């Protein structure tokens, strides 16, 4: 990836609502170059989507999120990817990672309540062939996500005017 794309990406990761004109000004390059870089990264799925980072606890307290460790036996010829796909197609599954270590997949599942997540695990996840075991951990509180601290305590303490 070229230097310009890397810089554009950094600025968009800080704030995805920055438009190409602003980014071009900040980087000191012509706007059409930025627009082209963004377009190419969108086409190449470098930029997959623009979304908002939400502090869920302020929206509704009902939703619960769980992290589930899954041990599997990869299928001959299809490896882990096939099973990962079987899992990530469920809309309640928010993320799926292939892991090194004691288990194989780490998945994040969101549900309205404990029961809903539990039922997903017992009725949908566990019955899948090749799944050896699952361990479910419910998230109690999110402090930081994607590098963003939800309850920022380090505010601006500077004097309003200083020499």
């Amino acid at each position: 990836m070229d230097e310009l794309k890397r810089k554009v990406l950094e600025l968009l990761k800080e704030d995805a609502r920055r438009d190409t004109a602003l980014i071009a000004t900040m980087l000191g390059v012509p706007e059409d170059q930025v627009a082209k870089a963004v377009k190419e990264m969108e086409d190449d799925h470098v930029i997959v989507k623009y979304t908002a980072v939400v502090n869920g606890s302020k929206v509704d307290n009902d939703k619960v999120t769980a992290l589930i460790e899954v041990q599997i036996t990869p299928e001959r010829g299809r490896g882990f990817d096939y099973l990962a796909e079987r899992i990530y197609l469920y809309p309640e599954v928010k993320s799926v990672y292939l892991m090194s270590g004691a288990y194989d997949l780490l998945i994040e599942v969101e549900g309205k309540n404990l029961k809903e997540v539990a039922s997903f695990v017992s009725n949908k996840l566990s019955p899948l062939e090749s799944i050896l075991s699952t361990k479910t951990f419910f998230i109690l509180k999110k402090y930081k996500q994607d590098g963003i601290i939800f309850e920022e305590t380090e505010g601006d303490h500077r004097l309003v005017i200083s020499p």
Partner: protein
Amino acid sequence: MNETVQQPLQQRGSMSDYLNKEARAIKPSGIRKFFDLVSGRKDIITLGVGEPDFITPWHVREACVYSLERGKTQYTSNAGMPELREAIGQYLNDRFAVTYDPAKEILVTVGGSEAIDLALRALVAPGDEILIPEPCYISYSPITALGGGVPVGVETFAKDNFKLRADQLEAAITPRSKVLILCYPSNPTGGTMTREDWLPIAELVEKHDLIVISDEIYAELTYDANHVSFSSLPGMKDRTILVSGFSKAFAMTGWRMGYACGHPDLIGAMLKIHQYTVMCAPVMGQVAALEALTNGLEEKDRMVESYNQRRRLIVKGFREIGLECHEPQGAFYAFPSVQSTGLDSETFAERLLLEAKVAAVPGNVFGLGGEGHLRCSYATSVAQLTEALEKIGDFVEKVKKS
């Protein structure tokens, strides 16, 4: 018994009569007045801040906390921890190609401010003239005057990007001239000096046998070019007291960590004053500064890159508003001209604050050449900058119409 012993011949009328005449003569900083107008208000966007908007990186804070846990709470050697002086020497050599002996030529101080104070105290004798290119940081003249020195402003101009011109400097030199105080990159103008800009200045310094205090606190915040330390110019090392610190580049203002480098005779004299007045810089700050130099250079580069992005944004913003703005090549200030509005800088800043709720510092407080300008710090978030620019734009339009 003699009664006159109990009764002084003349009673002092007020407490301020006890003050010496130099302390009495110092004017309160023009920034102070503005600060009083603003303080306590929450609805204001401020471009008036002379410090980074980054908090000191966590690893630096953590190093300090850890040293406290380990009980590192004692005096250090007067000149500063040897490891820190070593690190400063190495850093200055790597970054700016200047070489100082950590044992005799580097002194760790309480901020760059103390280093400037020490240098002036050590150098200035009553009647000496101290040359100060202006607009400039507000402290040089008062400290000069405290020691009985005579500050002589040398005006710099927007049309020269606020570079110091040799002809302007030479015109201000007299047989009593002794010290030249340089501050590039400049607070408040953002002006910088290239090697080519410096050479004729160095010639004058040589010719008139001047000594230079070079305040290079903003050295790292130089954009699109490398900072040229005055001390790195041919023949200038022994004529220069290089002053810098950690505040701006490493986002460490509140730690008060600075240093001075120079000829052992000069640093030695400054060290004497330093040991009698403050003993040593705080050990906690020294530990943090060492960590910043050891592991903080990448983070520093990221911060500089971020200032640069915001610099481009604010300069373009002012030009679109119709305020003339030279391109600041360093520090984190833009210094646009507000003359096209017909207002003087103080009126502009005051009305901008009251009517548009944006705080900035009027240029007149920075000495000669500052009138007609506004110092705007862009060390604030892109969102705030964008909003401030919109508000300034509306305000300027309103003023121009009326």
